[in-house]
């Protein structure tokens, strides 16, 4: 135990990592005050990813452990990236994606009843009644929800 007690503390490294995390958090905060569109999303995600790397390497000791631990983490992260980006790209590139969500007068009392219709939110308020009639049919179908 003697040698353990004489071991140098890693506290300075941890505090440095902590300061870096706070600085990156301030950067994310500052970023939110500018409207940069898609760039803001990309930058916010990049800063968050960098903070995650700092935590993984310094606080979770990923660098000290055997490399297979990092491999497990990277595979999980890769799958996460695929899942999130492909799901968003699917919805984001649909032809009937509205640029602005309007309040639907007929649907205001039960707004979240049909998730499929929310993904391709209807823009036309006069079609709201017809859409509510179609909604029951939509939720039982397995195919794409777009009308030809």
């Amino acid at each position, binding site marked *: *135990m003697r040698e*353990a*007690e004489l*071991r140098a*503390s*890693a*506290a300075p490294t*941890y505090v440095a*990592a*902590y300061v870096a*995390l*706070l600085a990156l*958090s301030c950067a*994310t905060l500052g*970023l*939110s005050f500018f409207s940069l569109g898609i760039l803001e*999303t990309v930058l*916010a*995600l990049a800063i*968050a990813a960098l*903070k*995650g790397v700092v*935590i*993984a390497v*310094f*606080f*979770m*000791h990923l660098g000290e*452990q*055997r490399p*297979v*631990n990092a491999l*497990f983490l990277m*595979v*999980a*992260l890769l*799958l*996460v990236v695929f*899942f*999130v*980006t492909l*799901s*968003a790209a699917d*919805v*984001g590139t649909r032809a009937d*994606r*509205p*640029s*602005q*969500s*309007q*309040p*639907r007068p007929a*649907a205001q009392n*039960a*707004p*979240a009843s049909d998730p499929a219709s*929310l*993904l391709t*939110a209807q823009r036309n308020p006069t079609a709201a009644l017809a859409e509510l009639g179609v909604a029951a049919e939509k939720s039982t179908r397995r195919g794409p929800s777009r009308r030809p």
Partner: protein
Amino acid sequence: MTTQHVRLQLQFESLEKQTHAARLGMWLFLGSELLLFSALFALYASYRAGHPQTFQAAVHHTSFWLGASMTALLITSSLTVALSVDAMRRARPRACVRWLALSILLGALFLVAKGFEYADHFAHGIFPGVHYAYAALPQPGAVVFFTLYYLMTGLHAVHVIAGLITLGTVAALVHRRRYDAVYHTPLELAGLYWHLVDVVWIFLWPAFYLMG
């Protein structure tokens, strides 16, 4: 180097391999937790792609300062957990327990802040799903935003509670001198779990509080 605290299991050739196996198992579990939250983040990304303006508007209706405070609380608690492991490595169990107690306090403060936040939302009629009644943002995209908000921050809060229980249990065992500088694997694993909870919040924070 021997210690009376660790029991080398029959199936492992050495303590180093046993410790590595424990850590790898924990990383595997953390990977599965990442995938759990990734399903919800995929939902968020998909609905945001479908309702970009509404999501941006809805972000302004969450508390900016509470969000920033909660982030600061969790990042600080990650530091104190790392310092507790450092203290244990240097055979200082009393300091380890003190750092763990501070971590638990910070995590509890996080939950208190979240409670205030939820109460404020309820007072404005912001409820999940069909119970949503927020007049300032009636769009269906806003309903989805806040339903996702409750789902994701709620699941995260459950993980924070589990993390606090784990840290508390480990702190009690450290206090009873169950571990030493050579063997304190449960403490390390509890720390890994807590850091994951922090990393998940680091991605929740811009999604629901900043990207507006």
